[in-house]
């Protein structure tokens, strides 16, 4: 068995035993103040839909950054798709991130390019052949309800539409995990619900979805697994849970 094969098996075994996302007693401290995460252990299985909720400063954003390998843990281990992120070299990060789809509150679209280009861009990065891109992009735009707007500049779209473009971009490479950081933070209730409905559909097709949110109404209505964080620790983790009150 080759080294590559061995590593692949180890990753599969890790996913089987601990899920696609596994934080093992993870702490993260910045230079000043209390640790942003303090001994967090969390396991998210393949195909799960998980809300991560908590007030500002609870450690949600740090958690997302650790999962994206934007930050490294001060102690403990972070595993995503069986990869030990604490051991990942800088040159391995791009390939690792291609397993993830990411959606941000501020959409983070390339505003000087049109809708099609924004989505196609994600495929170009992974060197998908042009023919395949021309087939995939319209299909994914149709999935998020933007089939007719592929030529529009992103600045001409509403907030909801921009988030759909971001969602299409995150999904076009068929990621195993979708991380959404406050995806409805800049949207009105109607658009928020539409985005959440899309996320639910994506999850139903097998993608693991992790949503960091403040939106109490959505969390309580969707009845998914809810991980509540406070001051860097997980205070509640409940399947079909609710957004807990502050105290």
């Amino acid at each position, binding site marked *: 068995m080759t080294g590559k094969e061995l590593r692949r098996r180890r990753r599969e075994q890790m996913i089987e035993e601990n899920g696609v996302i596994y934080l093992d007693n993870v702490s993260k401290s910045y230079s000043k103040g209390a640790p942003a995460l303090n001994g967090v252990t969390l396991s998210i299985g393949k195909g799960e839909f998980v809300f991560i909720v908590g007030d500002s400063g609870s450690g949600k954003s740090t958690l997302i950054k650790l999962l994206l390998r934007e930050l490294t843990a001060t102690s403990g281990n972070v595993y995503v798709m069986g990869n030990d992120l604490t051991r990942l070299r800088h040159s391995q990060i*791009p390939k690792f991130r291609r397993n993830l789809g990411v959606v941000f509150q501020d959409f983070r679209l390339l505003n000087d390019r049109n809708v099609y280009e924004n989505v196609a861009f994600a495929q*170009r990065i*992974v060197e998908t052949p042009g023919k395949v891109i021309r087939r995939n992009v319209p299909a994914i735009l149709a999935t998020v309800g933007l089939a007719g707007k592929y030529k529009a500049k992103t600045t001409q779209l509403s907030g909801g539409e921009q988030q759909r473009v971001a969602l299409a971009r995150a999904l076009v490479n068929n990621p195993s995990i979708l991380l959404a950081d406050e995806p409805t933070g800049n949207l009105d209730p109607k658009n928020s619900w539409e985005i959440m409905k899309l996320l639910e559909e994506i999850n139903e097709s097998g993608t693991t979805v992790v949503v960091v949110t403040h939106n109490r109404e959505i969390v309580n209505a969707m009845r998914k697994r809810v991980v509540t964080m406070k001051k860097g620790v997980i205070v509640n983790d409940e399947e079909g849970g609710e957004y807990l009150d502050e105290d």
Partner: protein
Amino acid sequence: MKISSLFYTIRQGFANIFRNKWYSLASIATISACLFLFGLFYAIVANFQHIVKTAEEGVSVVVFFHYEGDGKDGADCGPHVIPSEQRLEEIGQLIAARAEVSEVKFISDDEAWKKFTEDYYGDSYDPAGFPENPLTGMDSYEVYLSDVSMQSALVTWLESIPEVRMVRYSELTANTLSGVNLLIAYVSLGIIVILLAVSIFLISNTVAIGISVRATEINIMKYIGATDFFVRAPFVLEGMIIGLLGAALPLWIIYSIYNYALSYVIERFTVLSGFLNFLSVDDIFRILTPVSLVVGVGIGFLGSFSTVRKHLQV
């Protein structure tokens, strides 16, 4: 990297220039302004140096030899060793072999007299007034120097030759020219270094600001899973194209101005062209073109490369 990705990168490099046209224009303008000043100064300094060098090359040392009957007027002519024709030729070869000598001309006594009469009498010269050549026996060598600062060393050496009766030279001219040359060299080197340093600072800052504005774009690419090379390549290409355009524009302007100024001076001030020898456009651009292009493209490359690197740590 796949061929399609390579073409995509190249396309993006060009497209970025148009997408960020104001930044591109500002960068090209900054690079052009810096390299224009640099080029203009270089053209002026190179001409100064050339004029001084030409003047240096015109400075000659004249060597006279002992002859039958010299010292009759009571002048102290040292030991009286009269050179044979063969020895005269040999001395000529020895002088020509010296490193600081660029040219040696033998002037026979008859040639010397002919030149004298032409210079002082012109057409009114009457050979009857001088039945004999008054300069008989005064054969000489006119020695031209490639490095005028070596004149005094050459003169000392010439004076040590027993056959040499007298060496005529102007110490003041040599010292002045050599001093001016040195001054121009130091001042121009100093100014060129300062201009280049300012250019590098301004250009790399412009490139850095232009890229920093697009830090979000780089950020997005990194989150999606782009490799550092994939992110960096279009920016670096963009920086190099901007550097190239920024360098080419002032070259073209200086070429036109210089060409025009040169023909204007030659046509309108013909008297100047008699003693001021300007460099041709080709002479100037033989150095200026590669230097400007290397500075423009090089700074475009290095500026964009290092600035993008700062934003890649995501």
